[in-house]
């Protein structure tokens, strides 16, 4: 049983060393790979200097492209499970084990969720999260409590499917689409930290655009897609 921790990093020079050192020191059982997404700061140089496992993209692809690179690597190397893990220190590695236990019960995707047993706080961000949950529920009839969590674990079949297909971004609309197509998805309670460094990608206009895209995609576009399953190696 092999599990790969995929750490997409875009301009994370302030936090990358702390995150990877923590992984290497306390969680050496998991393999990891940093995907440097064409950062303009010293993220790649730092990783090379420290001798980290690094895939260095020469141009910026965005999160979806960077994460897919990690999944392609996992696919080629024959990993059984892969998990998306933020480089900014929000995700905590002590919860990987619980997610691994869950996915071994036979789920396709396990989401590291902040709201399985905890209650959602009331904020603008959570309003967005609720709207996406609602849209997912309307189209699939299933409840996803934390659809925007970036901490997601995939099994071998999903690794292949995500690695080789178009429109498989690591976003809530893909989750909704796969649920509709009969994939099994579970949530495991995790805690997340505030980001240690760097600025959040989401400002107001980006958040509005993101919500518009997600809602249109989940409520309308995903209903017309045809699934192409891929045989895993």
């Amino acid at each position, binding site marked *: 049983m092999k599990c790969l921790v995929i750490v997409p990093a875009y301009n994370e020079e302030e936090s990358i060393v702390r995150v990877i050192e923590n992984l290497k020191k306390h969680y050496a059982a998991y393999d990891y790979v940093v995907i440097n997404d064409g950062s303009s700061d010293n993220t790649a140089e730092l990783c090379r200097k420290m001798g980290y496992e690094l895939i260095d993209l*020469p*141009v*910026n692809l965005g999160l979806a492209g960077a994460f897919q690179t990690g999944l392609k690597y996992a696919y080629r190397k024959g990993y059984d499970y892969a998990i998306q893990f933020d480089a900014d220190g929000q995700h905590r590695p002590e919860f990987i084990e619980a997610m691994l236990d869950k996915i071994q019960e036979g789920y396709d995707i396990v989401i590291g969720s902040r709201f399985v047993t905890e209650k959602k706080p009331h904020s603008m961000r959570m309003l967005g999260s609720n709207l996406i949950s609602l849209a997912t529920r309307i189209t699939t009839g299933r409840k996803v409590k934390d659809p925007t969590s970036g901490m997601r674990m995939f099994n071998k079949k999903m690794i292949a499917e995500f690695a080789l*297909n*178009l*429109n498989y971004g690591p976003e809530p*609309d893909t989750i909704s689409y796969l649920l509709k197509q009969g994939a099994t998805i579970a949530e495991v309670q995790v805690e997340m930290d505030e980001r240690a460094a760097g600025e959040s990608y989401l400002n107001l206009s980006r958040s509005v655009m993101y919500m*518009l*895209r997600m809602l*249109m*995609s989940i409520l*309308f*576009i995903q209903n*017309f*897609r*045809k699934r*192409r399953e891929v045989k895993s190696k």
Partner: protein
Amino acid sequence: MTPIFRILLIVVSLFTTYYILKRIRQSKLQIEYAIFWILFSGVLIVFSLFPWLVSLFTRMIGMQLPVNFIFLLFIFVLMVKLFFTTIELSSLENKVKDLTQELALEEKERRDEQKKLLEETNSVKDRIIENDR
């Protein structure tokens, strides 16, 4: 707006939406790029179904004919879209250039290293042969 014009707008919008969805179904178009066209078609359909909306906007900006408002909307929206497409195209071209250069440079560096390695092993071999004599 005449009924024929409204029907024409609806037909064109539906056809656009159908074609976009077909491309997505065939995995040939990214969803990000589909959003604009589907929204645009949606707005046209709404205007065709509720022409009083168009009349309202027409009067608001002091135009004579509702159909002129529709034309203005088309020109504005498509101009903005073209503007952003140009920006995207430029950054895309830049990325392709960077990528190509990166690949070619890497390949050259790899060959240089191989050549250096080969020369070193050859000189070592020569020395061994000389020593044997």
